């Protein structure tokens, strides 16, 4: 990590930097990184810009290989990558552009509580929720399901949970894709993926996944806040989880098969992890279907987690979740590929948009949005690290024009897990968080250290860039009160 990336980064404006396609023979488009000068210094510290250039090799990539300000070094594309291929002219789909944790994402729900009313109950809440929500590596849920039901989940996504009574119709309306992508065919999923995902529905997982009780500590757009029913001091809950072992196995299965596609379709990429296939090939279609299955699994998982959170609040406060106003604001995916229509150089194209560590940020009046959000534009939820803030933003028309309707997804790491482990003391960190009024419960101390605030960029700076660049708009900011880590 000590090597500084020395490649070209040409300034387009205060928040955009170009890696010209002349940088490496084989690049089909430029790379464009969204950042300010300060974040750019961090970005140069690791190998993420090289990965932005590598993505530009993908067949039929259009416009540019984009990176959001939370960009950091991943495998294949960087984390924070957004890119799209023209599927009608042979554009590809790559599992590495989605990642292993397919539809890792986040949802935000509000409550009627003000901080002052429940500040003495935060600790109780965290302990009750820690008990109810299975967390940690390989954790298993109480929501047991048969294999037949598992297949149903893959098709129905969050609707499965709602039909079981673990939520209401409105929850689906307040989820990206209404909680399920259409066209998920369970026959494209291997038996191995079923086995690996078994019994993990309704579990949080480990690593950066979390459940957080927060309060709104800053309003930016009063009009939008009032439309979303949000005020200063209000308590919110954020849930961050994904498709767990099920998604990892699908990514592994299809990376294996797509390695063969590189020679079969004569595709040249500088990193084998960028294994891909034409979207309309049998291999491309099969992966996209299996990916949808995993995405739907993840939406159902977050719906089940939200059900457990509502139950936990009911237990602590002795009233119904409806009475506590625990309605979902929105649920967004951070790791996903979608077929979307966008205008590129004046032409309307059907694209396979990959968002790997990036969030969809559709502007106002987009037909994909439910009626309640047609005026406001799509809510975008940006989790920070456990010591700093999280944000609610909305998408913009400018994002539609510049970034295929996409924005950042979080803070982005600056410190490796290994160096975090070396330099941060878990007990010291817990004390520091405690002094800030943040209660943390985790299944292991290792996770706390790896996910320490010092290991991340400042989410405030990241959000500042996407707001000022105009690809999303700040609505309000939350600060953590209690955190459960996997």
């Amino acid at each position, binding site marked *: 990590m000590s090597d500084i990336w020395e490649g070209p980064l040409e300034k387009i404006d205060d928040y955009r930097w170009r890696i010209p396609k002349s940088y490496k023979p084989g690049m089909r488009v430029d790379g464009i990184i969204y950042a300010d000068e300060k974040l750019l210094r961090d970005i140069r510290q690791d190998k*993420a810009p090289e990965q932005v250039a590598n993505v530009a090799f993908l067949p039929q990539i259009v416009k540019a290989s984009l990176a959001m300000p939370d960009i950091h*070094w*991943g495998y294949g594309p960087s984390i924070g990558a957004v890119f799209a291929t023209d599927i009608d002219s042979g554009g590809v789909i790559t599992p590495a552009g989605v990642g292993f944790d397919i539809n890792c994402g986040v949802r935000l729900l509000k409550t009627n509580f003000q901080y002052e009313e429940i500040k003495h109950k935060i600790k109780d809440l965290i302990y009750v929720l820690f008990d109810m929500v299975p967390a940690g*590596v390989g954790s298993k849920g109480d929501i047991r399901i048969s294999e037949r039901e598992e297949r149903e989940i893959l098709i129905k996504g969050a609707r499965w949970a709602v039909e079981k009574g673990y939520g209401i119709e409105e929850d689906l309306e307040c989820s990206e894709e209404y909680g399920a992508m259409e066209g998920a065919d369970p026959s494209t999923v291997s038996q191995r993926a079923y086995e*690996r995902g078994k019994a993990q529905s309704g579990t949080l997982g480990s690593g950066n996944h979390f459940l957080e009780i927060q309060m709104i500590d800053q309003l930016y757009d009063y009009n939008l806040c009032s439309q979303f029913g949000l005020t200063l001091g209000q308590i919110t809950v954020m849930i961050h989880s994904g498709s767990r072992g099920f998604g990892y196995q699908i*990514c592994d299965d299809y990376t294996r098969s797509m390695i063969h596609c590189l020679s079969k379709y004569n595709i040249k990429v500088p990193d084998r992890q960028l294994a891909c296939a034409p979207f309309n090939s049998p291999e491309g279609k099969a992966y996209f279907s299996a990916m949808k299955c995993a995405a739907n699994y993840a939406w159902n998982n977050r719906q089940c987690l939200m059900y457990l959170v509502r139950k936990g609040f009911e237990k602590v406060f002795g009233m119904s979740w409806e009475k506590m106003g625990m309605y979902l604001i929105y649920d967004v995916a951070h790791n996903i590929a979608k077929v979307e229509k966008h205008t590129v150089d004046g032409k309307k194209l059907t694209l396979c948009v990959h968002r790997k560590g990036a969030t969809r940020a559709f502007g106002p009046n987009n037909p994909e949005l439910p009626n309640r959000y047609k005026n406001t534009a799509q809510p975008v939820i940006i989790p920070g690290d456990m010591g700093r803030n999280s944000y609610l933003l909305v998408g913009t028309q400018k994002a539609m024009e510049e970034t295929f309707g996409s924005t950042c997804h979080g803070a982005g790491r600056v410190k490796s897990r290994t160096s975090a482990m070396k330099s941060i003391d878990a007990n010291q960190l817990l004390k520091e968080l405690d002094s800030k009024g943040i209660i943390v419960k985790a299944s292991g101390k290792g996770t706390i250290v790896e996910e320490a605030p010092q290991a991340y960029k400042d989410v405030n700076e990241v959000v500042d860039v996407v707001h000022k660049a105009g690809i999303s708009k700040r609505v309000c900011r939350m600060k953590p009160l209690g955190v459960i880590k996997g």
Partner: protein
Amino acid sequence: MIKNNYELLEHTADIGIRVKGKDLKEIFINSAWAMFDIIAKRKSEINERESTFPHIVKERSDDLEQLFVNWLNELLYLSATKELIFYDFEIERLDEKNLEAKVWGEDIRNYNVNTEIKAATYHQLKIENKGLYWEAEVIFDV
């Protein structure tokens, strides 16, 4: 088998390892050992390992890199589904394209689990014959 014969590589989001071995077999074994060493540590209060039957792993791939990545990912799959941490590996056959191995695992409940490894990746993967020894580098998605 040489234990602890690996070093961690700096990587912002994920974990990378560098492994040495006297031959290719040792590279495969030491990498697998390192991977499970990162995932979990055995609880000190548990003494004897019960003797268990090994699992058989067979892989066929187009080349050595694929064979190596598939080997590690197969072990992750087995570990997740059988709820085992693997601690001993015996490679019975290994060439550029084929691998047959016996692997011994122990109940995951005898371990403190530290890190979930989602997969081994091809990103910056290296498997090199250095003359007197072999060396491999692999990055895990965690």
